[in-house]
């Protein structure tokens, strides 16, 4: 009965969404015509490659034009992982046995994950270092790195990530992000002002502060998500 009620409510929500979205054509540009100079999408599309020499416009919007929002997002993720850690993380005490969440894995999974783990880390690092050139960025790269650590945690039951290292990486990355923002303020401009030379288009060292901030975000997200997974997988119980 409750299931039917849930499905009925979902149908009502879906119907209202369909009626609201009916006029909008699938895949159509809803931010206005890029040819129209007055719209914000036209400004982004026309000026990003020249003024910032960043080929991935989305990265330019996320880190440069809307950098403060990204700082807020990173803070939200930090607060979420902080709350989870403060509820679940406990130091190992004498007389406590660790409860194995996962069953021992097969040799195939162990050998395979050892082989694929460096490749996953490499892909994650590539995604956030090249965030201003190719699709992806700090959040995506950090999440990919966290899935690599997840694979190792699932394959090896005694695989541990040092929480002090995670804390240091996370704090330093956060300080780098906020510090670069403050540096723009110190130079007499706005918070998160792009004060570095922007370089040439499609070079790795281009876009001013954008690659630095995205590398910091990548390290921060990777450390936070790895910490969350490590805390969840090692919940200790009194016995």
């Amino acid at each position, binding site marked *: 009965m409750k299931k039917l009620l849930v499905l009925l409510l979902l149908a009502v929500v879906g119907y209202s969404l369909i009626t609201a979205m009916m006029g909008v054509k699938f895949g159509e540009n809803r931010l206005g015509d890029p040819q129209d100079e007055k719209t914000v999408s036209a400004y982004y599309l026309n000026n990003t490659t020249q003024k910032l020499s960043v080929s*991935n416009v989305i990265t330019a919007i996320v880190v440069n034009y809307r950098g403060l929002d990204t700082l807020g997002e990173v803070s939200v993720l930090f607060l979420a992982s902080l709350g989870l850690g403060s509820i679940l993380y406990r130091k190992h005490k004498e007389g406590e046995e660790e409860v194995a969440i996962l069953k021992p894995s097969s040799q195939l999974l162990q050998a395979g994950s050892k082989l694929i783990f460096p490749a996953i880390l490499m892909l994650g690092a590539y995604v956030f270092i090249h965030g201003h050139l190719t*699709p992806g960025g700090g959040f995506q790269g950090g*999440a*990919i790195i*966290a899935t690599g650590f997840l694979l190792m945690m699932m394959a090896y039951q005694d695989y541990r990530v040092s929480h002090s290292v995670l804390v240091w990486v996370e704090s330093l990355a956060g300080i780098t992000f906020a510090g670069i923002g403050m540096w723009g303020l110190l130079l007499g401009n706005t918070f998160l002002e792009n004060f570095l030379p922007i370089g040439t288009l499609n070079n790795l060292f281009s876009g001013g502060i954008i690659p630095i901030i995205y590398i910091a975000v990548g390290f921060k997200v990777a450390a936070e*998500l790895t910490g969350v*997974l490590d805390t*969840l*997988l090692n*919940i200790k119980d009194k016995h």
Partner: protein
Amino acid sequence: MMFEAIVIIILAVILLAAAVYAVMQKDLLYAVIATGVISLILSVFFFIMQAPDVALTEAAIGIALTTIVFIITIRNTSRREDEVPMDHEPDRNENDN
């Protein structure tokens, strides 16, 4: 263009079926796997609609991390929806449902 439309329709049907299955299934582990399938198809959709950044995020967070967090939670509580967990009072569990 025709081929693309057929692929999109098939994927959308699978997505809807997985969503209904996730709601109806009593075994929560299967329901969580179904939500993982939803995330997989959604990330394909994001890629088709030329949003590769969102597709990457959905692939990493939706398929891997959210699924494993739910699986750990199921491992620590109870696998079936109507099952009463050993450590909890039965009356409290009734209110939760």
